């Protein structure tokens, strides 16, 4: 489990475009670097990220090593009804982590 900071508004009006922001604590090792012994450091990045709103897709992203360490992503969703915003991401070890936030739509 890595530390994740997610910014989702708690409430929204129906039909409002809401801004979703996520910051994941992760080194995003590129695989291009070498250690002090000259050995290549193996790649270790979060390679996929997916966000859904009540099981409907908001954003499905592929990350490459060019995404900075501690990846930050900002995107938008359309608020139609109350429910759950779920974010899932997978790293090179195959570890999948899921975070969810509730939103109330008035």
């Amino acid at each position: 489990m890595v530390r994740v900071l997610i910014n989702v508004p708690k409430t929204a009006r129906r039909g409002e475009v809401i801004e979703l922001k996520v910051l994941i604590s992760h080194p995003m090792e590129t695989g291009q670097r070498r250690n002090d012994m000259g050995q290549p450091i193996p790649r270790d990045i979060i390679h996929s990220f997916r966000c859904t709103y009540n099981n409907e897709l908001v954003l499905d992203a592929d990350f490459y090593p060019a995404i900075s360490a501690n990846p930050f992503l900002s995107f938008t969703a359309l608020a139609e009804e109350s429910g759950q915003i779920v974010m899932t991401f997978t790293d090179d070890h195959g570890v999948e982590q899921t975070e969810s936030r509730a939103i109330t739509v008035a």
Partner: protein
Amino acid sequence: MNRRRFLVLSGAILLPAIWAPARATPAEVKAAIRRAVGDAPLQPGRVKLDVPVLVENGNAVALAASIDALPGEVRAMHVFADGNPLPNVGSFRFGPRTGQPRIATRMRLATSQTVIAIAQMTDGTCFTDSVDLLVTLAACLE
């Protein structure tokens, strides 16, 4: 050739080889773009790529890409950096719950180069925007 001269010369030959960041060839950049969007022609316009023109730290460069279109018209946004060892930066596919077709993130840049954003529409056409930028402190060197 004495020892001092040999050391200086060998250093001059070896150091650039270690320090110069590997850079994708134009053919590799083209191939990466073709893998993402296929053979559709890239039309300039509609897409807005927002990155600083002068980058002080290549390890975290703010990047924002948007397109003047309704969310249902856009399938995905792809970002490429042609001077990185691997030109791909990220691919972002939109869904039925996307509010507006725009994303923002932070990327690494290995050297001064051109950053390209390509929006792929649901009908297969592609719009693009690119920015040439200068990087003073490159990423990936240590």
